[in-house]
């Protein structure tokens, strides 16, 4: 299960790279151990754990802390243990298997691993490369785009987990040019936004305009008439989509 962003969406995909991951793993014990004992040991890995990335890894091999949220044994047969684990990005499941083997005193290794979720993207959203290739063929050669539409998600889904602020048409182009979002430009917003939170700025049509840091809480925005509400950190929408309702300062004009 791998989320892949195309062209303009690429700049957003980094957001899910460091998010929660969920895997199904197959661990092979080197000798048989009763299920209760394996369960007991795997439970020890839930919470904050120390991990040194394994030899074959792409990061610096220094001891680091990773959080495991859930571990559940799905099936056990002989020396094979099939389990599901939900953890912080950068947790090595291979290492968990190895370490569990050490604690059990029988040694163990990871046989297979499959990622079933990255952030809010789950296995059920996934399509095979073959399906992608067929959808592209049907579109290019037969002129039918319906299959392609079925497998493509709009880039907006990448930021779907974020609190949202929706702006009026008249404020869109200024933000697309990198301007800060002021209170009068806001049409609606999620409750519970705190100052400093990362928020996604949308148009009333649901198009992503930019990501930004909230400069006010939801309550402050609701009770204010002016002031900067969100400072954009990354602009997604291209300028010129919406009418320009703002003025460039004339030369020599003071702000």
């Amino acid at each position: 299960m791998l989320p892949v962003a195309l062209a303009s969406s690429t700049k957003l995909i980094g957001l899910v790279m460091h998010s929660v991951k969920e895997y199904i793993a197959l661990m092979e014990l080197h000798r048989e151990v009763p299920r209760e004992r394996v369960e007991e040991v795997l439970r020890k890995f839930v919470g904050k754990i120390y991990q040194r990335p394994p030899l074959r890894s792409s990061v610096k091999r220094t001891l680091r802390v990773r959080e495991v949220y859930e571990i559940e044994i799905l099936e056990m047969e002989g020396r094979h243990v099939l389990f599901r684990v939900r953890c912080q990005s950068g947790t090595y499941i291979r290492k968990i298997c190895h370490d569990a083997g050490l604690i059990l005193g029988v040694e163990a290794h990871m046989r297979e691993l499959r990622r079933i979720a990255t952030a809010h993207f789950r296995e059920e959203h996934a399509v095979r490369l073959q399906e992608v290739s067929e959808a592209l063929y049907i579109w290019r050669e037969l002129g039918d785009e319906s299959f392609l539409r079925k497998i493509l998600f709009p880039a907006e889904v990448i930021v779907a987990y974020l609190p949202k602020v929706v702006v009026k048409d008249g404020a869109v182009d200024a933000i697309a040019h990198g301007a800060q979002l002021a209170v009068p430009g806001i049409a609606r917003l999620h409750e519970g936004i705190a100052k400093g939170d990362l928020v996604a700025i949308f148009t009333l049509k649901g198009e992503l305009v930019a990501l930004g840091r909230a400069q006010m809480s939801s309550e402050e925005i609701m009770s204010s008439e002016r002031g900067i509400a969100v400072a954009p950190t990354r602009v997604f929408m291209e300028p010129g989509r919406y009418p320009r309702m703002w003025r460039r300062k004339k030369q020599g004009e003071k702000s």
Partner: protein
Amino acid sequence: MSQDPTKKGLEFLEWLDRFGGVKRRWLVKSDEPTDPKYGCVPSERPIDEAIRKGMLVIDKPPGPTSHEVVAWIKRMFNVEKAGHGGTLEPSSL
């Protein structure tokens, strides 16, 4: 395509909330409609734009690395760049 773009836009935003597991309530600051002349609801983008502003969730086969899969996708769609949201491991094992 028909109907009110504001209604469609807000429905799309609610769908996004469900997709992202967001359970926050919406607060209305100013009940303003959107002009159908500009922009477009993301689910109704013309196909070329739907590709350029799109993403896929790939059921990755165990052999190739995430980077290889991204390189194939890039070539298949004929886009200048693509990126993945997996981990930085060289292989899944």
